[in-house]
C-alpha cells in the first residue's frame, strides 16, 4: 500500500535536499517570458492618463485630440466629469495605439480639468488627522494596575512609514478579446492565476469559463498582485472596444510605486512593565497608521509575547493615497518592530541581555516556545552573541558596533489546491496545477514531490503551472502555496502510483501492497530482480493516458493526516556598525534561524530566507514613501530616490533552517512571510545597542540616526 503521508527521513531521496530551481537557466538566459515580454501579433500598446492631484473633482474632460492622434485605436474614459478623485495618480483615461510612443503622445493630448479639493496625506500625527477610526481595543487582565505595580517600566514611541512593494516587474497584462467566440485571454503578472479568471469574467460580463488567464513567469508580487485591478479590466475592455486586438498595458515605475501597492504605516506609544527579575507583566499601547483611504490594518500588539495584563488600541487614519495591499506578512513586520523595540528598551532598563530576557519570559512565548528556545541557541552560536554582547552604548571612535535580536511567527498552512498527474503510455509524467511561481520555486517544489513519490528522477516529471484552465489552486499569499501545492501533488502522485501498482501487480505475479517505486522502476519490495521499468508499467494501460488527481486539504472523512501544518517560528539576530558622526548604519551580519515544518527543497527554502533578509534590511535602512504635504503627491516615485538596499549594503547573511525530528512531522509549512518579519526589528535593536540611544522611526537613514542622537527620547516626531 502506498502511504499518503510524507516518507520517513531515511526513505527520502529528493525531499529536503538542495535542488536548484528548475527554471533557473530559463530565467538567467532570458528564455523565460514574463508578462512584460509577451508580444502578440497586431498587439496594441496602452497608456494611462493619471490625475496629478491628491483629491479633486473632474470638471472637464476632452479626449477628442487623443482620439485623433496618430496610431490611436481606442480611448476609454475610466473616470469622467463629476468623478471625485481620492488619490494622486489615479487612473482617468486609457489610450490604446499601435505603438507605445503613439499611445503616450495621445495620452498627453487628453485634456482634463479639475477642481482641486483639500487633501490629507499625513499619517504620522494622530492629533492632526481630520478623521480616525478607533478600532476595537484589546484587553486582558488589569493592565493599569499591573503597570503601576511593575518594578521597572519603559515608555517610548516607535514607528514605520508606508513602504511600497516595488515588484521588479510592474503590474500589468496583455488582454486579448475574441469577439467571435466571446472569450478573453489575459496574460497577467499575477499571484492568483486561478482566482483571476472569475474576477475578470464578472467585471467584463463573460461566463467564467470563457476567460483564460496565463502567467508563466512573474517578476514579484509580495502581496500586491491578487486582483484583476481596474487597469486590468480596462485593458480587457479596450481590447474589446478595439475590435478584439490584443492590448498590452504595463504600469510604468512611477505608477507602480504610486498606486500599485503600499504597506500600511504603523506608529505607537507603548509602555511595558516587568518585575525586577525581568518577568513581563504589563503592556499598554496606542497605535495608529494608514494605508490609504481604507485606513490601515491592525498590527498585532504585543507581538509574540503573551503579556498577561495588556491593553492595546489602534486608530486607523484615512489618507488620500491609493489603498494599501497585502505586503508580505500583513501587519506582522509592524507589530514585530513596534513590540521588539519596546521590549528591547525595557530589557535595557532592566540591565538585561535581551537573550536572557527572552529566556526569562519563556512562559509567555506560546505554543512555539520550544521552537524559539532551540532557535535562539543556534542563533547565539552562529552570531557569537553570548561571547560578544555588551550593554548599550560605549565604544571608542566614531564607529560603534551593536547586536540586536527579534522573534516572529506566522501560520503558513497550505491553501486549497488540486493537482492532476497524467501518465502517458510512453511513461512520461506530467502534472498540471493552476498555481503560479512568484519567484519562490513552486515549479521545482512540485517536481520534487511528484518525482519523490513516483520514484523517478526529477527530470522525468514535467510540471505545468500558470494557467487558469488547470485544476484550481489558491493564490500565492500568506505563505500558503508550498503547503497547498505539495500536499495536492503528493496525493495526486500517490493516486497515480496506486493505479500503476494495481496494473503492475498481476504482471509481476504479486499484490499491489508488496510493490515499491524505486529508481524509475516498479518492483517487488526486497526483490530488485522482480521489476518493471516505469515505461513498461505505463504501457500496461494501453494507448490512452491515465490521470489521477489529488488535493489539499485531505478529503473529508478519509481519515488521512494532513500533509501541511501551521505555525512557524523564527528568530533573527543582527550586528551593525553605526558611524555616530554621520549616522550611517552598516549591516555587518544577519543570522536567521527559521522553522517551516518539513522542508521540500532546502536550497530554495534558504534562498527564500536570504531574499527576505535582503528585503527586510532594505526596509530597515532605506525604504519609505515620501509624500509632499502641499501637493499630496509622491516625491520619490523612482528607484533613484525610493531607495533600496544594494548588494554592498546587506552584509553577511547566515541562514539556518530547523529540520529533523520535532519539525518534519508537522508537514509542509509556508516560508514566504516569516523571515521578512524580523529584520527591521533586529536591526533597530542592534542600532540601539550600538549607540545607547533608540532610533525610533524607520528607516535608519543618517537623518533619523543623527536626529535621535541629538535629541534622544524625542520620539517619532
Amino acid at each position, binding site marked *: 500500500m502506498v502511504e499518503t503521508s510524507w516518507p520517513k527521513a531515511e526513505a527520502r531521496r529528493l525531499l529536503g535536499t538542495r535542488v536548484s530551481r528548475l527554471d533557473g537557466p530559463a530565467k538567467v538566459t532570458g528564455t523565460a517570458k514574463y508578462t512584460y515580454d509577451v508580444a502578440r501579433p497586431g498587439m496594441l500598446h496602452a497608456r494611462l492618463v493619471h490625475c496629478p492631484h491628491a483629491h479633486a473633482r473632474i470638471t472637464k474632460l476632452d479626449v477628442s485630440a487623443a482620439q485623433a492622434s496618430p496610431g490611436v485605436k481606442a480611448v476609454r474614459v475610466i473616470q469622467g466629469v463629476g468623478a471625485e478623485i481620492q488619490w494622486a495618480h489615479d487612473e482617468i483615461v486609457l489610450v490604446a495605439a499601435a505603438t507605445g510612443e503613439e499611445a503616450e503622445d495621445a495620452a498627453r493630448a487628453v485634456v482634463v480639468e479639475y477642481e482641486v479639493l483639500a487633501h490629507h496625506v499625513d499619517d504620522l500625527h494622530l492629533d492632526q488627522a481630520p478623521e480616525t477610526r478607533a478600532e476595537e481595543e484589546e484587553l486582558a487582565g488589569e493592565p493599569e494596575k499591573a503597570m503601576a505595580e511593575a518594578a521597572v517600566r519603559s515608555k517610548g514611541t516607535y514607528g514605520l512609514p508606508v513602504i511600497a512593494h516595488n515588484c521588479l516587474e510592474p503590474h500589468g497584462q496583455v488582454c486579448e478579446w475574441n469577439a467571435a467566440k466571446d472569450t478573453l485571454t489575459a496574460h497577467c503578472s499575477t499571484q492568483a492565476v486561478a482566482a483571476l479568471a472569475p474576477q475578470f469574467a464578472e467585471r467584463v460580463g463573460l461566463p467564467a469559463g470563457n476567460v483564460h488567464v496565463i502567467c508563466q513567469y512573474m517578476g514579484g508580487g509580495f502581496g500586491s498582485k491578487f486582483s484583476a485591478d481596474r487597469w486590468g479590466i480596462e485593458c480587457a475592455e479596450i481590447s474589446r472596444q478595439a475590435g478584439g486586438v490584443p492590448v498590452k498595458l504595463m504600469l510604468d515605475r512611477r505608477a507602480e510605486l504610486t498606486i500599485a501597492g503600499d504597506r500600511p504605516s504603523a506608529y505607537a506609544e507603548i509602555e511595558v512593565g516587568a518585575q525586577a527579575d525581568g518577568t513581563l507583566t504589563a503592556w499598554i499601547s496606542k497605535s495608529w497608521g494608514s494605508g490609504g483611504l481604507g485606513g490601515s490594518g491592525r498590527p498585532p500588539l504585543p507581538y509574540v509575547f503573551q503579556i498577561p495584563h495588556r491593553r492595546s488600541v489602534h486608530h486607523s487614519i484615512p489618507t488620500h493615497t491609493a489603498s494599501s495591499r497585502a505586503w508580505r506578512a500583513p501587519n506582522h513586520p509592524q507589530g514585530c518592530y513596534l513590540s521588539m523595540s519596546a521590549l528591547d528598551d525595557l530589557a535595557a532598563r532592566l540591565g538585561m541581555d535581551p537573550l536572557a530576557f527572552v529566556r526569562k519570559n519563556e512562559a509567555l512565548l506560546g505554543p512555539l516556545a520550544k521552537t524559539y528556545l532551540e532557535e535562539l541557541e543556534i542563533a547565539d552560536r552562529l552570531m557569537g552573541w553570548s561571547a560578544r554582547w555588551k550593554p548599550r552604548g560605549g565604544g571608542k571612535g566614531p564607529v560603534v558596533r551593536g547586536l540586536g535580536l527579534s522573534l516572529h511567527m506566522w501560520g503558513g498552512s497550505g491553501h486549497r489546491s488540486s493537482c492532476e498527474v497524467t501518465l502517458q503510455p510512453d511513461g512520461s509524467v506530467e502534472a498540471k496545477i493552476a498555481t503560479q511561481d512568484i519567484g519562490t520555486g513552486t515549479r521545482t517544489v512540485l517536481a520534487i514531490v511528484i518525482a519523490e513519490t513516483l520514484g523517478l528522477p526529477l527530470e522525468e516529471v514535467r510540471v505545468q503551472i500558470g494557467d487558469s484552465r488547470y485544476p484550481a489552486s489558491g493564490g500565492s499569499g500568506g505563505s500558503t502555496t508550498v503547503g497547498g501545492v505539495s500536499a495536492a501533488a503528493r496525493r495526486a502522485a500517490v493516486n497515480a502510483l496506486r493505479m500503476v501498482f494495481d496494473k503492475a501487480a498481476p504482471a509481476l505475479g504479486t499484490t499491489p501492497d508488496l510493490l515499491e517505486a524505486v529508481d524509475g522502476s516498479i518492483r517487488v519490495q526486497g526483490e530488485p530482480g522482480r521489476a518493471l521499468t516505469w515505461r513498461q508499467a505505463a504501457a500496461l494501460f494501453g494507448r490512452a493516458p491515465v490521470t489521477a488527481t489529488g488535493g489539499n486539504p485531505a478529503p473529508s472523512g478519509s481519515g488521512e493526516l494532513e500533509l501541511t501544518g501551521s505555525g512557524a517560528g523564527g528568530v533573527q539576530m543582527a550586528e551593525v556598525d553605526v558611524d555616530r558622526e*554621520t549616522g550611517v548604519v552598516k549591516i555587518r551580519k544577519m543570522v536567521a534561524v527559521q522553522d517551516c515544518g518539513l522542508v521540500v527543497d532546502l536550497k530554495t527554502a534558504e534562498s527564500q530566507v536570504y531574499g527576505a533578509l535582503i528585503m527586510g534590511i532594505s526596509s530597515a535602512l532605506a525604504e519609505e514613501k515620501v509624500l509632499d*504635504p502641499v501637493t499630496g503627491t509622491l516625491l520619490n516615485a523612482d528607484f533613484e530616490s525610493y531607495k533600496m538596499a544594494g548588494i554592498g549594503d546587506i552584509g553577511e547573511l547566515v541562514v539556518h533552517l530547523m529540520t529533523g525530528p520535532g519539525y518534519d512531522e508537522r508537514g509542509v509549512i509556508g516560508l514566504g512571510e516569516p523571515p521578512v518579519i524580523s529584520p527591521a526589528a533586529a536591526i533597530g535593536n542592534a542600532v540601539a545597542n550600538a549607540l545607547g540611544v533608540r532610533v525610533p522611526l524607520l528607516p535608519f537613514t543618517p537623518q533619523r540616526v543623527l536626529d535621535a542622537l541629538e535629541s534622544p527620547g524625542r520620539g517619532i516626531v
Partner: protein
Amino acid sequence: MRPFDYARPATREQAVQLLAATPGRAAVLAGGSDLLALMKDGVVTPERLVSLQGLQGDHTLRFLRYTAAAGFRIGALTTLADLAASEVLRLEHPVVAETAGRLAGPQIRNVATVGGNLCQRPRCWYFRSGFGLLAAREGASLVVAGDNRHHAILGNDGPAYFVTPSTLAPVLIALDAEVVLLGPQGERTIPLEKLYRLPLAEGEREHDLGPGEILTELQLGPAAGRQVGTWEVRQRETLDWSLATAAVALEMEDGRVKRARVVLGQVAPLPWTSREAESFLTGKTIDEAAADEAAKLAVQGAKPLSKNRYKVQLARVAVRRALLAATGLDREL
C-alpha cells in the same frame, strides 16, 4: 518622451550653430545618462538634441592629455570610467580618479561624460517630479513648505533650494580646474567655479552657459605638491547620491598652509567654497583641533530648512575628515 530632432554634427562649430539656431529649445546630448531620463519623465522637453558623439578628427572631445608642465586637458566627452582608469590621473590627482570611479555605478560611468557630469541637472525631487527647478507654487517654495531633507543648508536664501549634483565638481574646483566653453562668439576659459550660478527665476539655468555654448574641455594643472583630501557621506554603497561631500586642497610651506581650498558639495545650490574655512586655515599647521575649527567655520552660516538639520553635521564631518585625509592624519587616528 516627446518627439525631437536629432543632430549629430561632425564639427564643434556645427554643434554650436545647431544649438544657437534654436536657443532654449535645443540641448546638448553627451552620454545621455541624465538628459534622457529627464526627457522620459517630461521634466525637460527639448525640441532638438545635438549629440557630441559624432564629432570627427580634431573635433572629437574624448581625450585626456597630460604634460608635466601644464597638467591635464580633458575633453568633455571623456567618460568617468576613462578618468577612473587613467594611469597618469591616478598618479597625479588620485582623488579625481577615485571620485570618478566611485560615483553612480559601472554602467553609468561607462557612458557618463565629464562635460555631462559637470552640466548635469539637480536631483531635487520637486524638480524631477515636474514642479520646476525652483519648485515655486503661487510664489511660495514647495521645498520650504515640504520635504527638504536632501536640500540646501547653505546658499539657500532662495529662490533656489536644490543642491548641486556633481560630486566631481567640488574636487575639481578645489584643484583650481578651469573649463573651456565654445559658443557662437568663440571660445572662453573660465574657472570651473564660475560655471555655477544661482538661478533667480524659473527658466534660468544653474550653469553659466550662454545660448549655443558647449563645454569642450576641462583643464587641470599639475598637483604641484598640494595636499588633497575628500570625504563623501553616502548611505548606500553604490548607485546612491552623497548627502554631503567636502574636498580640500592645501598648498603647504614649511609645514604650514600657504593657501587652502575648501569646497563642499550637495549642501548648496552650487559647489560651495568656504572662504571662512580657507582663511582660517591659511598660516596654520593642520592638527585635529585645526580641522575641527575649520569644519565648524565651514558650516557656521548654515541655515537648515525644516527637515535637513542633520546635513549641517554631515557637512561639518565631511570637511573635518577631508582635512584629516589630506594631511594623512586620518591614518594616525
